[in-house]
């Protein structure tokens, strides 16, 4: 860390440093693009993975905090950039030319904070409708429902997008350009469509059966979780984590709890740690089972769905007994877990571990080796390792492209450093690799559970936590390995009982963003294969 600081201080004397949770560099906007380029391209720094962009409103100024990781050195860094210009039109230079995922992240910040990114080729709103008034995550946003009434007619839609560029005099000019080429045959896939796994919309320009371009529209289930969290106490914020990735809620809960615990310096009892890990891994198996089922169904093999749901059902029953719910558990809480394990828990989990290998074998026999399956999946939607990093494709999808990005290995949390398991990495990068990674991960998850299930220590399930929790002033960032990729929580506190800003960095947003890149030139049927193999889930990206 120290030499990163020295190096940057030498190159950019304007930069100031702050040693917080992560090393934070503050840099004026004018130098930001140069710094980003250095951070990415310098071999010693090699910050090639843009984790997230946190938009911020500090009341007197607007700005962004960029979280960057180096996949080579496994180092983390945060960069704080304050927007120039007035509150009406704040500007920051775009880094979408350096990080492919930057474009979507910047659109998100623009949508919520109104910060305009100079040089971003697509400065439209991302989640909110095109005519939305105001920027909701600003602290002075007016929530009066009369300003943005529920629309009773179809919303306006535009074929144009804006781009802001600096001309020779340094003046910022707005340019309009078309999203599609004129007279393209544009098919509207979604928001209500069997294969989009929720309400996601792809406007797809096709030439016959061949896809030319896809424009992703999100936000159909945008609920403003981040905004609601700012008005809630820390305990209340927990509930929303169930409603993001509702197929595997445990890791998300785990993440928010860890972030708050880190900030409040709470020591979690070991029993709770182990229970959390077991729950995370059970979630992972359930989630991957569902992935396999729905993915096969998308490809037309409906029968597989029932075979995979059988295992998932068994897991949901285990969850039901202990957590009291099948999908929205609300089980992890700050300082531990909310209730002790069911007396049958160990027995049920062991029964599951017994049937799982047989089932996985059956899935492979039924589906993986099938010649039609292989034709549909092999070589379809190939994502290279460089692209995966640039598009921030984490989780099983990233590992299918040869990027070892498992947070359980790169930054072990809870008791993951005490258990033995392999990180499943494949190098093909196609849909088949993404599918097989998940298949193998189920086995690894079972291995983790098998190591822990007999060794759940006795003791408390919860640490003593004050009823009214106040976090000290500061900011924290925590990531966990969700079932679909790296899930991050950023909390900034002003010392009050509710977060000043709570940013959720979901794994599915990049997964949906990359669809256009992967599908270009392939067939309509490949869109379904690629979308299915990426396994995004819409409430997670929309929040």
């Amino acid at each position, binding site marked *: 860390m120290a030499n990163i600081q020295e190096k940057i201080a030498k190159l950019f004397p304007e930069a100031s440093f702050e040693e917080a949770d992560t090393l934070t560099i503050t840099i004026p906007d004018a130098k930001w693009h140069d710094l980003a380029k250095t951070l990415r391209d310098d071999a010693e720094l090699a910050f090639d993975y843009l984790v997230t962009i946190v938009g911020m409103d500090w009341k007197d100024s607007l700005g962004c905090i960029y979280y960057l990781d180096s996949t080579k050195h496994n180092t983390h860094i945060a960069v704080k950039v304050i927007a120039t210009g007035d509150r009406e039109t704040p500007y920051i230079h775009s880094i979408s030319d350096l990080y492919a995922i930057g474009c979507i992240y910047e659109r998100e910040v623009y949508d919520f904070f109104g910060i305009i990114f100079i040089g971003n080729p697509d400065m439209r709103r991302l989640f909110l409708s095109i005519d939305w008034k105001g920027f909701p995550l600003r602290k002075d946003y007016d929530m009066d429902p009369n300003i943005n009434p529920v629309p009773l007619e179809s919303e306006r839609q535009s074929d144009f997008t804006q781009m802001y560029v600096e001309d020779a005099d340094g003046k910022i000019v707005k340019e309009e350009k078309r999203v599609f080429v004129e007279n393209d045959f544009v098919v*509207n896939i979604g928001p209500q469509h069997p294969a989009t796994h929720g309400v996601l919309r792809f406007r797809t320009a096709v030439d016959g*059966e061949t896809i030319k371009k896809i424009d992703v529209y999100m936000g159909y289930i945008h609920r403003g979780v981040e905004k609601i969290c700012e008005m809630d106490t820390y305990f209340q914020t927990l509930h929303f984590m169930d409603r993001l990735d509702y197929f595997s809620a445990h890791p998300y809960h785990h993440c928010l709890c860890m972030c708050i615990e880190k900030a409040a310096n709470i020591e979690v009892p070991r029993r709770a740690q182990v229970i959390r890990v077991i729950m995370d891994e059970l979630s992972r198996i359930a989630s991957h089972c569902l992935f396999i089922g729905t993915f096969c169904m998308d*490809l037309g*093999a409906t*029968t597989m769905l029932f075979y995979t749901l059988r295992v998932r059902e068994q897991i949901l029953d285990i969850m039901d007994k202990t957590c009291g719910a099948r999908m929205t558990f609300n089980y992890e809480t700050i300082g531990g877990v909310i209730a002790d394990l069911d007396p049958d828990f160990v027995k049920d989990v062991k029964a599951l571990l017994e049937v799982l290998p047989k089932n996985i074998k059956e899935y492979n026999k039924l589906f993986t080796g099938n010649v*039609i399956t292989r*034709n549909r999946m092999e070589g379809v939607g190939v994502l290279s390792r460089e692209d995966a990093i640039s598009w921030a494709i984490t989780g099983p999808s990233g590992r299918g492209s040869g990027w070892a990005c498992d947070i359980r290995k790169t930054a072990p949390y809870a008791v993951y450093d005490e258990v033995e398991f392999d990180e499943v990495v494949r190098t093909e990068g196609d849909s088949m690799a993404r599918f097989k990674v998940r298949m193998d991960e189920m086995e690894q998850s079972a291995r983790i559970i098998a190591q822990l299930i007999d060794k759940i220590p006795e003791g408390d399930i919860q640490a003593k936590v004050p009823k009214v929790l106040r976090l000290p002033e500061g900011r924290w960032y925590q990531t966990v390995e969700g079932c679909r990729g790296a899930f991050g929580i950023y909390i900034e506190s002003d010392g009050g009982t509710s977060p000043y800003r709570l940013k959720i960095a979901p794994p599915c947003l990049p997964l949906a963003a990359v669809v256009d890149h992967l599908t270009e030139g392939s067939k309509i*049927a490949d869109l379904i294969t690629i979308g299915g193999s990426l396994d995004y889930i819409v409430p997670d990206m929309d929040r």
Partner: protein
Amino acid sequence: MQDFSELTAFIHSLLMQFLPHWAAVTVECVIIAVCLLLAYSLLALFYIWFERKVCAAFQCRLGPNRVGPWGLLQSVADMFKILIKELISLKYTDKFLFALAPYLVILASMLGFAVLPWGNGLQIIDFNIGIFFLIACSSIGVLGILLAGWSSNNKFTLIGALRSGAQMVSYELSVGLSILTMVAFAGSMSIGDIVNAQANGWFIFTGHVPAVIAFVIYLIAGTAETNRGPFDLPEAESELTAGYHTEYSGIHFGFFYLAEYLNLFIVAGVAALMFFGGWMPFHINGWDGFNHVMDYIPSVVWFIGKAIALSFIIIWFKWTFPRLRIDQLLALEWKYLLPINLVNLVLMVCCIVYGWHF
């Protein structure tokens, strides 16, 4: 073996006693039409129930089990529901073609029924180009699907229709060629002759290797002809919502739905006719007792039983395999099935000329 032509001849002579010739023929036509429609709807209802039960068994479920014994009346209830549903008319569609399309589709499958050999002497019309007529009129169905896709004014249906056009036109070649192989073997296109030629052994056994190859190709191409999985691209649910019939409702949708199942029956029926002896019972040379017992089973049961057994295989395909992609589908036909088929035809001709068959 009971000959149904005695029954039909009896009805004919009975009518002739009371009516002039033209009236007798008219009455007979009406009776045939009623029987045909009845058979058509009953078979469709059975098939819907059958497929749901089979698919449920594959998927570790029970399937329909609430309406009637073993859920037998479920498909009757479903059909009733479809009948009373509203026909939603859409703006900006070609109203005439939109309404015409489902009738064309159902017409094609009904015409196919006319020449199927239901039993010994139980065939509506047996003319010298029977099998050719069947292939010809089943092609009308494509027209209906294309019209449905085009007139709906919807991009999904249009893509579905285009896929369907490409698929049906391609696979008709394979169906036609594999049937041609067997026609060459039988030496006749008349359905009665084809069935009678199999009195001493079904073609699948007597036709040597080329007959088996022709059967496999026919089964694959026939599955594709009926737009069923793994070749259900025109209505690929996860891609095109419902393909060419997305915009249809009520009984218009019901027609597409029925036609799909009846086409399944026709494809299986033709397979039974060309390879498994139509209504001919299963005979083994020399086993007279056995053959005698087999003869006691009515010919109608033989034919329908064979057709259902063969459609079970096609249903099995659907609930096992994932769907192909359009380019893979066309590659399969043009690069593999068609050349194999042509070679197979030559092989069959050699078999016939040199008398290699059994």
